[in-house]
């Protein structure tokens, strides 16, 4: 029993990490007033870039860097459009998602079914349950968890964070104080894009460790939903991400136990729970308005 529990915790952490990374990246964007509906596309582009670089160079770290860089590059195009040219954030984000899906499918044709040159991490069977549950993980799992308090410190306990939040809550005020609103927002879009990229690369390089067309399977959209669920707080976001990781694991465990529910209905769970969670959390519009960064989705025009 404890062994099943330990393994469930381990798989939950592994499954929730891409959601946590991408969600934190999007949270940084949204705290500064930019909503990036292109997350799914960024993750897909990062997943295939990381995978391709991994296959050709055999270096894990190079693969992760390439993935993050590719996503940041695409995010830069998005950021240039919405931050500097004030294009509609929704339309531009959708375009980024569509482009990312098409581009990754196109580039990825040659990589379907190819193997990564390094062996997968096989957990040590002799390890203690404590180790299996909490310690034997990919480094990014710890990065994702550590990012939550780090971002909290940055946003709510430093002067920089105060400026960052001001840019998201009242860009006009920040502008009047002399802060370069657009540059700050653009930097945030790049950082958020890189985090989405790490999440995408994690999916193709660590778990489930393969490339297939559209393999992110809505992870980017679920991460977007998580930012609402978390009411734009980092710790709540990471908690939510692992809750969703848990839903994934529950789905697989129930199937393993031979529960007689068609697998398709099990696979619906993450999507349906996203809808349910969104409904529950948005029920009170006043509460959402209280927590949402005030300038979210609105372009910034420097008044003369």
């Amino acid at each position, binding site marked *: 029993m404890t062994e099943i529990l330990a393994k469930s915790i381990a798989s939950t952490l592994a499954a929730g990490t891409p959601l946590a990374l991408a969600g934190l990246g999007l949270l940084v964007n949204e705290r500064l007033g930019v909503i990036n509906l292109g997350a799914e596309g960024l993750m897909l582009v990062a997943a295939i870039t990381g995978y391709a670089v991994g296959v050709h160079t055999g270096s894990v770290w190079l693969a992760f860097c390439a993935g993050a860089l590719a996503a940041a590059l695409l995010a830069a195009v998005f950021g240039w459009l919405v931050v500097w040219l004030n294009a509609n954030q929704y339309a531009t984000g959708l375009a980024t998602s*569509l482009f990312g899906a*098409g581009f990754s499918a196109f580039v990825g044709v040659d990589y379907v079914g190819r193997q990564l040159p390094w062996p997968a991490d096989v957990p040590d069977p002799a390890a203690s349950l404590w180790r299996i549950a909490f310690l034997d993980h990919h480094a990014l799992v710890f990065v994702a968890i550590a990012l939550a308090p780090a971002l909290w410190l940055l946003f709510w306990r430093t002067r920089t964070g105060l400026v960052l939040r001001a840019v998201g809550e009242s860009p006009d005020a920040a502008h009047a104080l002399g802060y370069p609103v657009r540059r700050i927002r653009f930097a945030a879009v790049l950082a958020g894009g890189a985090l989405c990229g790490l999440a995408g690369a994690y999916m193709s390089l660590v778990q489930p460790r393969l490339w297939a067309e559209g393999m992110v399977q809505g992870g980017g959209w679920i991460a977007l939903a998580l930012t609402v669920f978390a009411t734009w707080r980092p710790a709540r976001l990471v908690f939510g991400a692992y809750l969703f990781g848990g839903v994934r694991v529950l789905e697989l465990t129930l199937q393993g136990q031979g529960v007689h529910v068609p697998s398709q209905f099990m696979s619906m769970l993450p999507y349906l729970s996203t809808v349910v969670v969104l409904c529950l959390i948005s029920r009170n519009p006043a509460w959402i308005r209280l927590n949402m960064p005030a300038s979210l989705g609105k372009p910034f025009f420097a008044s003369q």
Partner: protein
Amino acid sequence: MTLLSPILALSITVLVAGTLFIALDKDPVRALSLFLVKPFQGTWNLTELGLKITPLILCSLGLALCFRANVWNIGAEGQFVFGAIGGGGLAMWVTTHGVEVSRWGFFPFVIVAGALAGAAWAAAVAYCKDRFHANEILVSLMLVYVANLFLTWLVVDPWKDPAGWGMPKTVSFAASTTIPRMFPGMRLHWGLPLALLAAAAMWMFLFRTFKGNQLQIGGLAPAAARYAGFSPRAALWTTLLTSGALAGVAGAFEVVGPSGQLNQGAASGYGFTAIVVAFVGRLNPIGCVLASILLSAFRRGGELAQGMQIPPALTGVFEGVLLVTMLVCDTFIHHRVRFGNGGPAAAASSRPTP
């Protein structure tokens, strides 16, 4: 002015495509002609193009209506799939129960079944938004995945053809249920004229009726609309149900028309391409028809290009590039962009505007 941006975007997309073909070591002129010229040559290619235009027009009309009312329904794909399930389910029932129908007599039932199923799926989005204020972008997109999984379940389990060697598909529908064809020997069916009629009707509704005007004001200036007493809830339900019904009809046409059976291929990405169509068509019904022609040529080109060892996924790249470049062009056409240090207030106020 409204036409400038899509035309400019198309030119840039063609340039990007040409560069891509050169990078892939393919003859750019020949490859490009597969996407832009070949789909319009010959009766067979033209009718096949018409087959792709039909669902794109229907889906994009609904999306244009939604986007004009500031309702961000991006789940047309899911509503398309449910329409396919509705229309396909009805055709399957008629086939397996041996009900005698005539092609023209059954056609209206296909439309109604598709519209109801698509609208029902869109109603879920409207309900979540209306009752719980849940973000319609995320809800409609999540429901696409759910709809696809539901379709998969139907064709691998309860609706599977018992004589289909375990293939995930339903029985082939009786010939009497399929949509009447326009020309003998061609797959193009009477759905295309209906889609064009729908575009005309949507144009009348948007630009010649009070209700249509109300919806657009609700999208442009929500506060003004509220002050005028226009109900945002009515706008939400009207736009979502209409676009769901249109996407559903498109889905039903697809399976009861050229496909003749329900399988996993019913989810063909038309609902996502329709987003590009709606924007490139400037959210205008007539523009949507024109953009549908262009984007179905891209899709058909993707099929034709396989002969040149070019992966069909390239179509998706072109769609993305087209939409991105159009948004860029829009900005440059509608705004005067000043490049400079872009710094804070001081930079702007120090120089008087000429």
